[in-house]
């Protein structure tokens, strides 16, 4: 099965983060991504620009509205994602728990609808 791991966290914290800590975090993500690759489970994943750059688009009755996003104003924002292949939910949870974002935010694990 494929799962989407959504990395939610307070993006504001990056602003005040000392450079050394940013490097540490990048290093941790690099190692995690490599571990996913080595295990042969990585199917995709990207880091996203901050939620202040988001735009929400809707079409209703033929009229398109464009709003300054993000879609939901919450304390923690979607900062990036991975798509992984895992045997079952427990295996996916196991990978989510190892994601650096799990220790300073939360990882939402969602099964991907097979097409």
């Amino acid at each position, binding site marked *: *099965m494929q799962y989407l791991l959504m990395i939610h966290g307070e993006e504001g914290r990056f602003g005040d983060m000392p450079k050394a800590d940013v490097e540490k975090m990048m290093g941790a993500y690099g190692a995690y991504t490599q571990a996913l690759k080595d295990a042969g489970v990585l199917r995709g994943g990207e880091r996203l620009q901050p939620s202040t750059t988001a735009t929400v688009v809707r079409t209703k009755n033929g009229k398109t509205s464009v709003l300054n996003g993000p879609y939901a104003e919450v304390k923690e924002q979607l900062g990036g994602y991975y798509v992984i292949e*895992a*045997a*079952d*939910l*427990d295996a*996916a*949870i196991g990978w989510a728990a190892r994601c650096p974002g799990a220790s300073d935010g939360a990882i939402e*694990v969602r*099964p991907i609808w097979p097409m």
Partner: protein
Amino acid sequence: MTPEAEDAARAAATRVARESYGKLVAFLAARDRDIAAAEDALSDALAAALADWPRRGVPANPEGWLIVTARRRRIDAAWRGRVADEASETLRLAAEELEAAEEHGPLPDRRLALMFVCAHPAIDEAVRAPLMLQTILGLDAAAIASAFLVSPAAMGQRLSRAKAKIRLAGAPFRIPEREELPERLDAVLEAIYAAFAYGWEQAFADDPRGRNLAEEAIWLGRLVASLALDEPEALGLLALMLYADSRRAARRDAAGRYVPLAEQDVGRWSAAAIDEAERLLTVAGAKRRPGRFQLEAAIQSAHAARRHGGATDWPAIAALYDALYALTDSKVVAVNRAVAAAEAHGEAAGLALLEAAAAEGGLDGYQSYWAARAALLARAGRKGEAADAYRRAIGLEFDPATRAFLIERLASLG
């Protein structure tokens, strides 16, 4: 076929349904995690058995017969409802499993794995016990709803949502690895105990289902204890439920009035249930891995000692509650701990613990807190405050006999 043989066949079908329901669901759902489809197929197969067995006799392997029939129904449903690819995949898996089942004789028992699925951390805690009662025991949503005091429609919806999540999110039918086993087993045991507690509290309510629920929970407890052999907490839970159940008859007097534990006639306790509980607790203790349920069972064991004419060892019980409270941090335990401390060290000690627990919050709507507080205040001679606390307890109680008991105590304050 003679009417007697027909009755026998019908009885056999009912018995297999009762004893094998969870085994059959677990077997049918293990591959594709589709519990709802497994239940549908099984109920079709059981209906077919009720029509077929009285006419042609009970098959030599009733479980095998039900599996084959249920599998056929699932394949039919798959052909009807899904794309051909998926149906042929289901067909292939079914053929493989049938072969395996025939070669290896008795059906593999995957009920423990099914219980771990029902109590998976991804499943809402409130629905874990209902899910277990339905998938392992085959109770219907309406019966479960009534026992858990929610509407049948709401319960049905919660159950089907949970089953959909298990299927779509891919919660695995397996026994967790050693490192995560204690925590995962705990969730299973908690769910069983929740079912027992609901049944226990309602054992004397007008609805007879409450009584049944306590029995069903004991049945589940036996099942886990027999399947998870090396786990002392599983034995501890079963012992705990048996101790409580041993006092069922003594909880009411001849007139149906509530009798508190300290005033119960020990002659009306079930000696057989207590003996079994003591044996289980001894086996569990020998494994030297104490836990919440073993501690609770040990407290019950200390209460049960009174059956041999001994006085209740309150200091020992108070110490066990201290350990239990340190482990669980639960409000139920906090209240019972205060009551034990009052017996062991005096009302002042008990009231101090109760007040400390109340300061943490969350006790205002809890009947046992007010009843315990009332009793301790009454003993300390603080009548006005005791009366207030009794009124709060009476207002929160839903069991008529217990309410009557509290009203009597309130009146006796004078």
